[in-house]
């Protein structure tokens, strides 16, 4: 299972992305990396000019509580006009609750400079404002003090397998599915 990122950043090229997972206290990753950096991808030559990473991520969580369901935080970076590595967007999305294949398109955004002058200088210097921690985009706190500008989209496809959710009283499967009792060896929720 892989995570093809299909970002739509119209003006940028040669982007790479960093991802990390944000989860609650009752969650713990069992396998896989919770943080990582993808390869650099270039624009497609076709009309769409999509940037495709097709970067696979494999992670398994276990949890005792649905609260704090993991979110994937994606931050995209790329060189600017002068070759400085600048951030091109932050975005976060919850890992789908229901087992199966999902496709999520995350709108990305970047923090805005506090003033026009800042904007110019940051452009000149090549240091755009960045979040001190990309995980803030997955949190509710502190949003009131920042201004962001939206910028592109990233598409992530998830393949989710859950285990023993039903047993513990959580019915996450879609209603039309015939109650697939997934018997897996690992105790937890898989997110491929």
């Amino acid at each position, binding site marked *: 299972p892989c995570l093809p990122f299909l970002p739509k950043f119209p003006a940028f090229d040669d982007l790479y992305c960093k991802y990390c997972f944000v989860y609650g*206290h009752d969650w713990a990753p069992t396998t896989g990396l919770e943080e990582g950096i993808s390869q650099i991808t270039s624009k497609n030559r076709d009309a769409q000019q999509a940037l495709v990473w097709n970067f696979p991520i494999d992670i398994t969580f276990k949890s*005792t509580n649905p609260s704090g369901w993991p979110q994937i935080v994606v931050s995209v970076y790329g060189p600017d006009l002068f070759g400085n590595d600048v951030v091109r967007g932050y975005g976060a999305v919850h890992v789908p609750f229901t087992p199966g294949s999902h496709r999520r398109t995350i709108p990305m955004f970047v923090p805005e400079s506090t003033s026009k002058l800042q904007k110019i200088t940051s452009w000149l210097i090549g240091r755009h404002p960045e979040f001190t*921690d990309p995980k803030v985009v997955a949190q509710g706190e502190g949003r009131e003090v920042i201004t962001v500008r939206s910028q592109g989209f990233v598409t992530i496809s998830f393949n989710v397998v859950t285990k023993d959710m039903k047993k513990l009283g959580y019915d996450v499967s879609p209603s039309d599915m015939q109650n697939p009792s997934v018997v897996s060896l690992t105790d937890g929720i898989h997110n491929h």
Partner: protein
Amino acid sequence: MAVWSVKVLIVANMNFNEESQMMAMEELLGEDQAQAEKLKRTLRAQRRRRKQPLLEAVGPAVLPAEEEAEKDRAGMAAPAAAARAPRSLPPVPSTSRTSFAEFSIRERMREKLKAARSKAESALLQEGPSPRPRHLKSLRQRESETRWDKESDEDESRHMQEDESQMSSRVKFCDSVKKLKQKSHVQTDFPSAEEAYNFFTFNFGPEPDNIKDETKSKKKSESNQEEEEGEEQESIVSHQQEQTEDEMDEEDCLVNDREDLFIIDQMARDFLVVKPADYRSYSERLQKEREILFTPSILTVPMSQKVPENMQPRYLEDEGLYTGERPIVSLSNQNILENRILRQEQGKRWFGDDGKLLALPSPIKQSSTRPPIFSLEEGIEPELETLYRKAMKPMHANQYIVGSRDPQGQFQLDIDISGLIFTHHPCFSREHVLAAKLAQLYDQYLARRQQNLTKLLTDKLHALRNAVQSSLDNSGTNVPNPVAQQSVTEYKFVIRQTRRLRDAEQEKDRTLLKTIIKVWKEMKSLRDFQKFTNTPMKLYLRKEEVDQRSDKKIHEAEIQAEINELLEEYMEEYEKKMEEYKTELQEWKSWKKAQKTKKKKKIKQSQDQEEEEAEESEYGEEPVKPIPPKLANRLEVEQQVREKAVNIRRKPGESVLIPELSLTGSVTPNDLCPRAEVLRREDVKKRSVFLKVLFNTKEVSRTVTRQISSDFRVHFGQIFNLKIFNWPESLKLQIYETMGLSSTNLLAEMFIPVPETTVLTGRARTEEIEFSSNQRVMLDHEGVGSGVPFSFEADGSNKITLMTSGKVSNSVSWAIGENGVPLIPLVSQQKTGIPSALKNIDAVASIGTSGLTDMKKLAKWAAETKLDPNDPKNADLMQLIMVATNGDACVPGFFRLEQLQQEFNFASDEELNRSKRFRLLQLRHREVAEFRNYRQVPLLEREITEKLFENYEKRLRERDVIDSKDHLDAHRALVAKYLQKVRESVINRFLTAKHHFLLSDLVNEEEVPSLGNLGLSLFKLAEPKRPLKPRRKERKKITAQNLSDGDINLLVNIIRAYDIPVRKPILSKLQQPSRSSRSFNEMFAASPSLQSPTHSIDWAFNQALVHPFVEVSFQRTVCRTTTAEGPNPNWNEELELPFRAPNGDYSTTSLQSVKDEVFINIFDEVLYDVLEDDRERGSGIHTRVERHWLGCVRIPFSTIYFQTRIDGTFKIDIPPVLLGYGKEKNLGNERGYDSVRSLSEGSYITLFITIEPQLIPGDPVREKFDTQEDEKLLQAAEKYQAECALKFPSRQCLTTVVDINGKTVFITRYIKPLNPPQELLNGHPNNSQAAAELVARYVALIPFLPDSVSFAGICDLWSTSDQFLDLLAGDEEEHAVLLCNYFLAMGKKAWLIIGNAIPEIWFNIQQYDSPVRINFDISKPKLWKSFFSQSLPYPGLSSVQPEELIYQRIDKAAALELQGRIEKILKEKIMEWRPRHLTRWNRYCTSTLRHFLPLLEQFQGKAVEDDHQAELQKQLGDYRVSGFPIHMPFSEVKPLIEAVHSTGVHTIDISNAEFALAVYVHAYPKNVLSVWIYIASLVRSR
């Protein structure tokens, strides 16, 4: 072709004229080209046709002289034509008709042509020079035109023919006359319009040949018509012919012209008179002008001219009346106007009382009420732009809307206004008045007769009497029945009442009849008097003969019965009165008696007493003697009854009179009436009436205007169908009267009730609604007017005044739709009456929105409106109301914010409380310390052990319970608890503050480089890449968010140390005896010397040496440097220690509260030769390494955390006694300056400590605290701070601090002289220096506890000195403040140096900020900036400190107890630390040490070393002792243990090592305790 077209155009114009004439249309010449084109086409065809008849009529031979010929042959043409056109219609004309037609047509023509002339002229001008006179052609054109027209309309064509014939005849006439009169016209070549005009306007008198012409032409036309079809080929011929005609005309004209010209010339000469130019001299002109012209002066008009004579101007404004603001007119203009006005007649009228021109107040508003609208070019603001919207039917905007959901829901109200009757009208004649009265009375009579109350009551009376009679009969025969008796009396009572009623009714009937007759008589007399009749009213009195005898009999019987009844009544009354009389008489008699006895008494007692008299007078008036009632006389009664009967009843035998009113009378015709009456009648005729129907005060329709008929009835008979949307609020009729053509006069208004919903069209009854008007109308004819008194009498007495009044008969009903459904608003079906309907239409409207929540109100409303519970529309409401009225759901008296919350609660509160898991989650969410970062809350209830909560619960439980176990001292435990509480509250406060974010917390943003920065960075480019002396660079800071264990390291860079104590050279002195005796002297020796005690060279080599190394222990992780040599070692080593945050929580808060300390211990590495045998020395080295603790430096982690780095030289905390070590002796070897320095005291170590990666220390709390300080002072403080910060940004400047209650306090308030403990002062009564030292020591003994540790969050809390002493813990501020206060109390000058001074705040504005370099002379303003200055004098702030500190007495016993306990604990600990070895305690040594300790305390650890050593040596002969005393202020046991552990005494792993440990606790006042721990290890030397 050009000629053609032009010609045609003209023709067309003319033609058009004619046409328009015919059609009576106002279209005129030269309309437009298109029309002309059309006409052109038609005319061409016409012309072709036209040629034919002409040819026929005149014949080819006579063509050139057509005109003349025609005229000449006028007489004979008719028969010829008649012969030629046998089929033609008979000639219509009759004399009168022609004349009439001629007249009217001439008139019209004249008008038309006048208008047309100008147009035609202009058209002709365009046409250019055209040689042909057009009149003939145009005439022909006319002919042809009419002919053509005739095809379509016969009737019209007849007129046309007449007209045309006349025209033709006139043209002919004109032509003949032209030669004589109109020469000029012909000459001009433009005859058409003008000529035509003259032609038509001139009156030529009767023309006998007209008719003939007409007929002829008509015939011509007739023939034309017939032969139309075959004409087309001849068009060319006709054209040629035409041309020849034209030529002919021309010739004629030319002949005529000559004559005309001649005449005109002659005229001109005759009339011309030459005169000199008229000239008037300038002065003369001026004179004249002065007469005519007037130049108003601009001087102010004197007041006297403006106000009426002999009057003072009156200023209304001064009198308090409102005058308004006059429009602004410039003074000069005003003056001019005034002057001008005054010249006029009655000019003064223009001036008001105040002598000013009358003026209305200025109507111009001060500000514009309309937003400025800019023109399109400038670009309108988008929101101001006018948009076109298609007109829409207004949606029903108000609440009166009926059934808005149904677009078809139009409801219809049918209003039928059938007519109007005036009961009085100004135009009423007297007779009318009477007639109206009569009619009214008659109506009344009819109504009464219908009711027939009299008859009813009479019957009732009879029945009652019969009943009484029968019951009496019964009672007479049988035993008296009380029930019957009762009923009889009741009957009688009812009979009386009924009789009375009947009498009243009878009387009314009688009077009514009488009045009717009277009025009728009056009317008759009036008719006789005025000798004409106005009304058709006639009253017949029908007599109904009655049977005299029976009537009399009945009458008599009636009277008798009544008499009897009355008598009976009177009897009863009499009896009653008699009864009363008797009682009264009795009373009177008794009174009389009493009076008599009194009188007797009076007589007896000659001497009169005043008292009695008074009594007597009090007794009251003498009661009147009652009069006995009279018995009713039968005769009297009978008379009475009879009289009444005569009055109110028909006489017996008299015939019954039945009045009948009929309208059969004849009204006198106008010519027989007097003038006034005729006028009246005409006036009435002029008047007409109409009604307006107003729905919701808006006029919706009005009736036709109808004349008032002579009987003042107006019939309308109109039905208005009102389609309504809105609720019928009101339905009103307005009656208007119009007089002649003008003046519409509102007579009266009346309201019609909106019908009940059951009233449907077809079933509605016609109702009469009365109206009246209070208008006063006076008329000058026979009409009596309205509101004007008039009289029927000849003498004018008995005046009556009548108002215009009348009745409108109408009916209002709801219409029925096509399918039989009544078009009634739905809701109104449940309603009665309009107001309620209005109210009930909508719940919201009727009870208001607030009412909707009020169930009671809603229910009440529902009950009132009688909502249909079965109506699905009301289902919701009914349900709601049902619930409300049942009382199941009580309406809460509060407003619920989240009323659905309960539904979303997935578990009840009890469940939540019961469940351990939920509890755990909740606690974690609340960030309770124990659970703040608890991970992986178990999934199932059973997996959560009770143990989890134990700590927490215990803490909760023991919050108030003081546990002395940990603290060994009750007081300290108390303090600890208190501190804990304060800490908790403060932490809670900061936890909330933590969730406030700043932009900088979240976003990393490069600062805008200032010019200086830019320059600096440019400068940096020039820096060498690898400088010889590299400086530390700022590193990137990391927020403690994404950190985990192992991420953070503590970097400790040990650079060098100075003056490390060295092994005592005393050993060398002892060398000799040791050698000989193999004695125990090694025990004090530094290790290397022992390698070979026999080799003195070795000793000499070794003796200067100390092998120090540094061991850094942090969080029980230990790291050490390599061993260096000498007392001034240089390590320059970097040690890395991992840092673990408590609970793995790397948040700022938890990092701030890390209490761990970094211990930097300096050890001496001592090598012992363990070789037992000297012989083996050559082959092997057996040494044991021992380390001896020399000293330590403790640095709290918090300090590192907040400072981010620690860089500097620190004094090593070396115990006062270090057995076997000394310093001063080895100084000789050192270089000069070193020795000088080290002479001072202590050893130093240079360190650099930092955290990797750099953590961002918590931000200062941004919250502003409450304060009780003066606002002004605070502002000044802020300003002061800002100023200082500007100058020296790196220096701290404090003006206000936060006290322990979280309030901002001005810093100087802390400074106040406070008495130090008396005991301390007593110790050195004379030596103030010593006392000061003691005091300082005392202060230093109070444990140090940084604020940031106790209060996580960087808020610097300052506690007052007493609080400080109570807590027995505090940070540098508290210590400093206390010490400062003590010194002040001791009369010393003291300052608190934080960058501020005492008692004022001073800011160091010197160049340097390190303490030693500061010049403390505050009097130099150059160096110290004062906070309080002249501008802000010291306000004498009261101190927050207590007046006096109270010290508890020293509790020696407690100290002793504590001492024992500490010792025990420490011993246990040491044993615990050495699990693999047996720990032996050398009791002897311990007791020795215990003796040392009080001395140490006494001398404060100074220079007692030698004594100890000697003593020990003396006492413990064969032991190698290494040990030292540790001194600490006491706060808790734990730090003591830590300290002992850090020395590493326990690490000795020699099997036979023994230990000695002694503790001494010295108590100072206020429970300040100084703890001494003497610890030593002993190794038995063989």
